[in-house]
């Protein structure tokens, strides 16, 4: 089977979820759509289980933070249909004070650690996740370090002031 054209994919999603799927871009041929957290589970389940599409491979889950936007935290899913060799990117944007989204672990076992990593770095809470703990950072960390307001280096350090380096 050949690659599914982005238009076909978009049309299929549009018919199944009318008005709930927005196309964001098709950068470098990879279709990116946005949806809401209310239907994200259904969208992912449809993409995975539909006999034509068969996006059975969850490539990645990650997030992105745009502090200036009203919906500041975006959760990004990369799916891959191995039989048709098509990729799709699905995004869900959440407001920073209500970062809840349903888990994808019901569809893919592999989503477990990907969601833990996303929680660890962005504080996205995946409702229904069996074991939502920090994974790479220490357990008693209180911040979510990949958010943009978190500085790369500890601002309280005194050994790296600019004047030590003639700046």
């Amino acid at each position, binding site marked *: 089977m050949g690659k599914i054209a982005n238009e076909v994919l978009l049309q299929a999603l549009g018919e199944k979820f009318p008005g709930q799927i927005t196309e964001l*871009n098709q*950068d*470098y041929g*990879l279709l*990116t759509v946005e949806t809401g957290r209310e239907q994200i589970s259904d969208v992912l389940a449809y993409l995975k289980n539909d006999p034509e599409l068969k996006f*059975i*491979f*969850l*490539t*990645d889950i*990650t997030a*992105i*933070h745009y502090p200036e936007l009203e919906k500041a935290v975006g959760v*990004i899913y*990369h799916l891959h249909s*191995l039989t048709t*060799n098509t*990729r799709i*990117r699905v995004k869900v944007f959440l407001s920073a004070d209500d970062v809840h989204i349903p888990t994808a672990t019901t569809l*893919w*076992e*592999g989503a*477990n*650690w*990907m969601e833990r*990593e996303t929680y660890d*770095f962005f504080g996205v809470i995946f409702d229904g996740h069996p074991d939502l703990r*920090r*994974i*790479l*950072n*220490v357990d008693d960390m209180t911040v979510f*370090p*990949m958010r943009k307001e*978190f500085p*790369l280096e500890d601002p309280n350090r005194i050994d790296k002031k600019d004047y030590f380096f003639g700046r």
Partner: protein
Amino acid sequence: MQNHPVYTDNDPQTEHSTLNLGPTHPATHGVFQNVLEMDGERIVSGVSTIGYIHRAFEKIAEHRPFYQITPLTDRLNYCSSPINNMGWHMTVEKLLGITTPKRVDYMRIIIMELARIADHIVCNSILGVDTGALTGFTYMMQYREAIYEVYEEICGSRLTTNIGRIGGFERNFNDIAFRKIRKVLTDFNYGLKEFESLFNRNRIFVDRTRGVAAVTAEDALSYSWSGPILRATGVDYDVRAMEPYSSYEDFDFEVPVGDNGDVYARFLVRNEEMWQSMRLIEQALVKIEKEPSDIFHADVPAFYLPPKEEVYNNMEALIYHFKIVMGEVETPTAEVYHAVEGANGELGFYLVNDGGRSPYRLHFRRPSFINYQMYAPMSRGMLLSDAIINMSSLNVIAGELDA
């Protein structure tokens, strides 16, 4: 008389014991901790703790210009860092719309396939060590050393290579490098045959690995496995064949698959991949002869640093040097996902660019991280010694696991 309990066969142990496997256990080959609940020799359940060498690469990358992120990728899978380097260069090239000359693509393929061989040598010979066969390891290390010498000839370093630049290579391969590559091929052709005759039909090795940690294709896909361990379950997913990058479509190679996804199948798949890598390098060496021999990078002055002597003597080169170093070059506002077939599976780079000199967000899809999460669930009911060889055949690299 005796204070401690004595267990015999007729007096089964009623309590489970806890075993800390790692973080610095010699049999885990890296910083992995697994807290195992043991019933005698059998694992009842396990919890993996990771993150011991987390270095916040994704955060650092947001503060680095594109060309300074390459050294970070070295430190992901440090057994095959050239693949990571090339994957990153190709991601940026995809973002910027740079097409590289064919000769650069072939040079990259030579380096990437050498790196794949070096990685598989480590994995398979260490698997031998963990099953009690030290001989293969002692013989195979010389070929990895020969490959590291090729790296050394090309870029000057061995482990964290930082090979290549955005748009191509920092310098051309010299004659010594080509000679060394050809020598690796002839020597390793013999060496791999020897290694295979030592292991493939070795009764002890086969008994020890056949049927251990067998995984079905459904489970492997559900856990998003990729790379040799997915192919060992019978799924022929290889990024090089599915989405060819760096002119892999010009080459003739096979994607080996296994049958039942056990440790032995993974071993055979990796061995066969080394043969295929050698085929690829041989083809690349032939193809490279037909290309003009002085081309080793694309003509992208806005991203490829000019040679130093030109910077001092040529106005235009000086301007470009300044623009690149000061980050004055415009980049498109776009997002790009690029995947390469790393030694452990699909190594993906998800780059969101806002037009600046450094990524707005960079995420590494690290195969080791994703492959390793099945380790604790699949260890249930397994013997401890089987869990050890299962871990070495997963080839989890701590640097890639923790990023």
